[in-house]
């Protein structure tokens, strides 16, 4: 179980003949993910270490039974790949590509939504249901199977949290990297709803960061819709105002989007918030009655 990806995932990888695409497709397969196809226009009929390559995503759905699409396509072509995937019949699209223009994503977002397809990303590290399927670029060997769901905008920070939990002997159900771009297909609230509905998840760790108001909205959502315990973390407590910190999302202006306003909103919603990744893992351990190492 877990959310979005798992034993039933039949993955098609767009951009599989590229250097990064092939590396991560094979890495995902090695983890146990059922990689059924790759797509590179014009290279249909070839294969990448036994994975058949198709010209279109629709072909891979028809002929290889793909139900989940991972996009490893350069930014200038990635938005077209999102449209193609949404149109192909897959149920889940995971877009790893970083650097897609925001206006392009604005239009693609509404298209995907209308099609009723789930989009994760863009600019995300992917999704890993521990022990079942890893779709994306996460170093999944640091995760251990368990029942804590983890959602985060940031890749490496997600790994950090996953490792801190693993180090304390706390396993995870699904690690969900939602991405740091201004327009993403799945936000914190969507992720919380998925984990709330997942029988394999009994606790949620939500990692946010400065900028925007998603974490505040997530706090509202937790109050009304989430019964499972949530532990929070907000990166950027000490970030200066008005400076972009890498992620397009991570910029503070005035009082909105500050780490403190997010921490306050979460605390008010009954979420315990740790001040750093180690502190978060300790809060999770305490909440689960796991002995905390000194």
């Amino acid at each position: 179980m877990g959310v979005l990806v798992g034993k039933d995932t039949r993955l098609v990888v767009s951009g599989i003949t590229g250097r990064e695409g092939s590396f991560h497709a094979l890495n995902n397969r090695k983890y146990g993910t059922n990689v059924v196809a790759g797509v590179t226009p014009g290279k249909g009929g070839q294969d990448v270490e036994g994975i058949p390559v198709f010209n279109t995503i629709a072909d891979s759905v028809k002929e290889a039974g793909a139900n989940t699409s991972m996009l490893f396509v350069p930014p200038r072509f990635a938005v077209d790949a999102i449209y193609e995937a949404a149109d192909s019949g897959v149920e889940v699209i995971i877009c790893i590509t970083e650097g897609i223009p925001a206006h392009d994503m604005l239009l693609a977002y509404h298209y995907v939504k209308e099609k009723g397809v789930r989009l994760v990303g863009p600019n995300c590290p992917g999704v890993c249901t521990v022990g079942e399927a890893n779709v994306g670029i996460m170093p999944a060997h640091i995760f251990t199977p368990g029942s804590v769901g983890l959602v985060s905008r940031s890749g490496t920070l997600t790994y950090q949290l996953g490792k801190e939990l693993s180090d304390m002997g706390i396993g995870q159900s699904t690690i969900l990297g939602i991405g740091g771009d201004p327009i993403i297909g799945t936000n914190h609230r969507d992720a919380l709803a998925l984990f709330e509905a997942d029988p394999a998840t009994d606790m949620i760790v939500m990692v946010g960061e400065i900028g925007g108001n998603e974490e505040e909205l997530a706090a509202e959502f937790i109050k009304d819709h989430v019964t499972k315990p949530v532990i929070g973390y907000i990166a950027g407590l000490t970030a200066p105002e008005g400076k972009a910190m890498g992620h397009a999302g991570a910029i503070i202006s005035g009082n909105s989007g500050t780490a403190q306003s997010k921490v306050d909103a979460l605390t008010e919603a009954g979420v315990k918030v740790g001040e750093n990744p180690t502190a978060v893992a300790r809060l999770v351990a305490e909440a689960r009655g796991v002995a905390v190492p000194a």
Partner: protein
Amino acid sequence: MDLYEHQGKELFARHGVNVSAGKVAYTPEEAEQAAKELGGQVVVKAQVLMGGRGKAGGIKLANDPAEAKAKAEDIIGLDIKGHVVRRLWIEDASDIDREYYFSINFDRTAKMPLLMLSTEGGMDIEEVAEKTPEKLATMHVDPVWGLRAFEARQLAFQANIDADVRNKVVAMMLQLYDAFVKEDAMLVEVNPLLITPDGEVKALDSKFSVDDNALFRHPYIAEMRDVQAQDPQEQMAHEKGVTYVKLDGEVGILGNGAGLVMSTLDVIQQAGGRPANFLDVGGGATAEEIVASLEIILSDDKVRSIFFNIFGGITRCTEVAQGIITALEQLDVQVPIVVRLDGTASEEGLKMLADANLSNVTVADTMLGAAAEAVALASGTTATV
């Protein structure tokens, strides 16, 4: 990427938006010449990427070229909230009858452009929103359809735009929406949107911010970047393709991934230190990028120790280790470095560092442990200076 007023206006004009004629000047003499060519009264306006220019004395009226030169002398070099004025925009003076406000925001939560229109222009719009919210009309636009004339008209009625200029304001909103979409803007703001006594409608100021990810299709805008106004380290980082933000502490930070680097700044502060910078080498960093990044961090002479916080995913820790080893061979590194490597190829990376036997490199197991070590080393070095 934020644009100067005159650059924004240049883009406005390309989309038919009415703006005053003007010229850029870098010296008082150029300002004088510009005023001569424009003729009549001019306004000398500081070009900085910061609001509140008027209050700071950065906008002055001049009746003739000699006066324009004198005002330019006053304004050039002025420090407006940390931004030193190096560039001026000299434009035809406008007669002011009424001042409106209009903006288009990229609303990431609603996933739609958000229009805001008000008759209360020329002042801080956040104040209007707070004190007289009924005077700020707002509307979301379906990005698939774009802004249609009837919607702009509805917004104008909602904002109580005066009847004599309503059609002209509607036309300008449509032009600005066109600019917003076609130039890949994240923000377009006109404050004030000016009405002259004879009913002319004009964008008297411009705030224009363009999506960095879309600059590849706007080479013309990409060239507008004012590299001289950038901090030299930030400029170097931009050239090397890493994200660097200068801060004012003493612990240099190098990490991969924006979230992890922000978290690293936090743990440094929690350990009692102050970060000197934010530096994100991004995903899949190569040894060369590590060397360049270290060079950028070291060009800040306040740095007393450096904390490498790497969690390998797409980045391989062996590349990072090789970068550190190469950097220490090539650069004269005096400050101690604390390294924490985890994730992809971390064991091999750590072994490379151990084999290289580097005297000023300490390896730490955990992020918190490494932070404490880096802070201790920074204060230790400071004490001996």
